[in-house]
């Protein structure tokens, strides 16, 4: 008896449940179709990759989408490696990268364009209590020694020799490197490779390299992760993109002077970056895949690079292609994305006009 009354109530409840479920499905279908109708005229662009370019894209997107409301751009800070692979796979429409695609990749995917959008530089930062505002001097070979484990202490004589009068601590160095595939790793290891033959032989350069096992070293994800890791770790050293200079200064971390090809020690600044760029711009080929690292000249900062957008030439739809062309054309224009107020906020340098012309020619190929 009790069972039957219970099952009766269960049946009643299950009927209510069934109507509820039908209503839910209908509601979902309704929102679905409204959304789909709304979506028809929009173009969705996914930008993913370089965490160095990410702050700039975040400045660009609100301004650009306000003027072009039919384009929806999602930005993601995932590392240049992700930018490369997802642009190639066609998962992201724009792969942001501090590094150009490798020759082997280009042979397999000749359809890919490497379009510089701006010039960036990379800082070498450290967290030394009491010395963070001193701008200690470092060179390629010394950094190579720190990252391959042959220089373990901050007061090592190699470091002391180039920093006379600086009271370096007797403390182990914590080298911090990127764990994600990273254009910052690419340009940093290029600096090491171009300045230090032994590094070039053993580790070479790349977005992901096989780091030497140095006790105490740390891996961090993205530039933000590098900043945070450095901030949390006294006696740490890290390579960080210049778009995080504000964060570095806010947290009171040190910025090193780096030894350039000429043998001079220079700080990263718009002036030293432009000096280095001036040496390399004329060498830029039509496909714009060139390293700007370790440029000659007394004022040249040694680690500067083009910030690339990696894009497929052939797009699935004419609308997407047009949206991409418009966005990039705006981005490299001195009145648009390359305007000083954007560049200064992230400490980038605008593209020189000759390079902007090469980029424009590549942008025109997106169909």
């Amino acid at each position, binding site marked *: 008896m*009790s*069972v039957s*009354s*219970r*099952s009766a109530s*269960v*049946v009643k*409840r*299950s009927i209510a*449940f069934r109507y509820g479920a039908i209503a839910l499905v209908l509601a979902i279908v309704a*929102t*679905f*179709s*409204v*959304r*789909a109708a*709304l*979506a028809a005229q*929009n173009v*969705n662009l*996914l930008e*993913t990759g370089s965490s160095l370019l*990410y*702050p700039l*894209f*975040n400045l660009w*997107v*609100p301004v650009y989408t306000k003027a072009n409301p039919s384009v*929806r751009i*999602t*930005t*993601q*800070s995932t590392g240049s490696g992700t930018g490369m692979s997802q642009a190639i*796979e*066609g*998962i992201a429409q724009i792969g942001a990268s501090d590094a150009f695609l490798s020759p082997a990749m280009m042979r397999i995917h000749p359809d890919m364009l490497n379009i510089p959008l701006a010039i960036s530089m990379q800082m070498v930062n450290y967290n030394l209590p009491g010395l963070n505002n001193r701008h200690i001097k470092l060179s390629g070979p010394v950094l190579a020694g720190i990252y391959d484990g042959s220089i373990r202490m901050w007061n090592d004589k190699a470091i002391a020799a180039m920093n006379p009068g600086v009271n370096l601590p007797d403390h182990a160095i914590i080298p911090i490197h990127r764990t994600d595939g990273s254009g910052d790793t690419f340009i940093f290891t290029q600096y090491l490779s171009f300045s230090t033959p032994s590094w070039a032989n053993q580790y070479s350069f790349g977005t992901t390299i096989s780091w030497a096992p140095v006790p105490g070293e740390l891996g*961090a*994800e*993205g530039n*933000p*992760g590098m*900043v*945070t890791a450095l*901030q949390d770790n006294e006696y740490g050293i890290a390579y960080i993109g210049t778009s*995080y200079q504000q*964060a570095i200064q*806010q*947290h009171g971390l040190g910025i090193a002077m780096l030894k350039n090809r000429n043998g001079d020690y220079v700080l990263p600044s718009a002036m030293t970056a432009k000096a280095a760029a001036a040496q390399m711009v004329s060498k830029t080929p039509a496909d714009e895949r060139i390293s700007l690292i370790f440029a000659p000249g007394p004022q040249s900062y040694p680690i500067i690079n083009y910030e690339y957008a990696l894009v497929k030439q052939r797009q699935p739809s004419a609308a997407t292609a047009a949206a991409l062309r418009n966005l990039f054309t705006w981005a490299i224009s001195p009145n648009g994305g390359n305007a000083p107020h954007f560049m200064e906020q992230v400490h980038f340098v605008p593209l020189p006009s000759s390079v902007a012309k090469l980029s424009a020619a590549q942008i025109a190929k997106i169909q």
Partner: protein
Amino acid sequence: MDVMAVDVRAAIVNPTLGRSLRRRIFNGLGWMLSALTFLLLGAAMLSILILVFVRGAHALNLKVFTHITEGTSGGLLNAIEGTLIISLGGILLAIPPGLAAGIYLAEFNDGFLAPVLRFLSDVLVGVPSIVIGYFVYVTLVVDLGWQFSVAAASIALAIMSLPYICRTSEVALRQVPITLREAGHALGVTTGTVTMRICLPMALPGILTGVLLALSIAVGETAPLIYTAGWSSYLWTGHLTHEPVGYLTYVIWAFITEPFEGAHALAYAAAFLVTFFVLLIGVAARMVLYRNAGAQRHS
């Protein structure tokens, strides 16, 4: 165990001063240690909840619920929507096969399929969620060209949820008295009708508990979504494939390492929402279970 019981008796029958002291110390120390373990566990857990709810509450404001994410600032509307869509999508996909497997295990335990299915389902629980994410990424996202999408993410979550729904519905169905089935069969009703019309409604609360548990796991997942859902700072426009979708756990993971206060605030807000959802679902699931247990007692 027997030896221990004898020891205990020996201790009681021949009490000596040293032994009783030892017993008292043993007892006191034992309770103290077990209380200590519980208190330490509780303290650590409270620390987590306080971190999430206090910092999260500070970060919550109306904008979080009404605005979409812009870079690392703005609101979380897109992520809240995305989390709901992909978790509900995953659960809806998982219910038919999960429930079918639960029914099969409960009602047809005689053949060779049932034990195999039960073992596979139990092993599937142990497969790390990132392995499932990797699988979906390579097959659906890349090879089939679905790209980051609601469909890929929902399928990844559905695979994860299958064993939970399967095994909880099996247990719930088993608790339906066999006499009910026999009564149904005696009336000449087929097995299918007995299962669908009698057993399933009776077992509904138990099944619902399992579904809610699976939902809470889906809401809290991150690893299998990174390479299937991607991330989007816009609201979903209704495309099942070719459109990435935002979700809350991504915000926690990705924004907490950004060196900006605004990004941290969003990460805490997201952590608040995810934890709140998950605990709420947990409470709801238990309430369904307890209410049902109560109902059964009273009837």
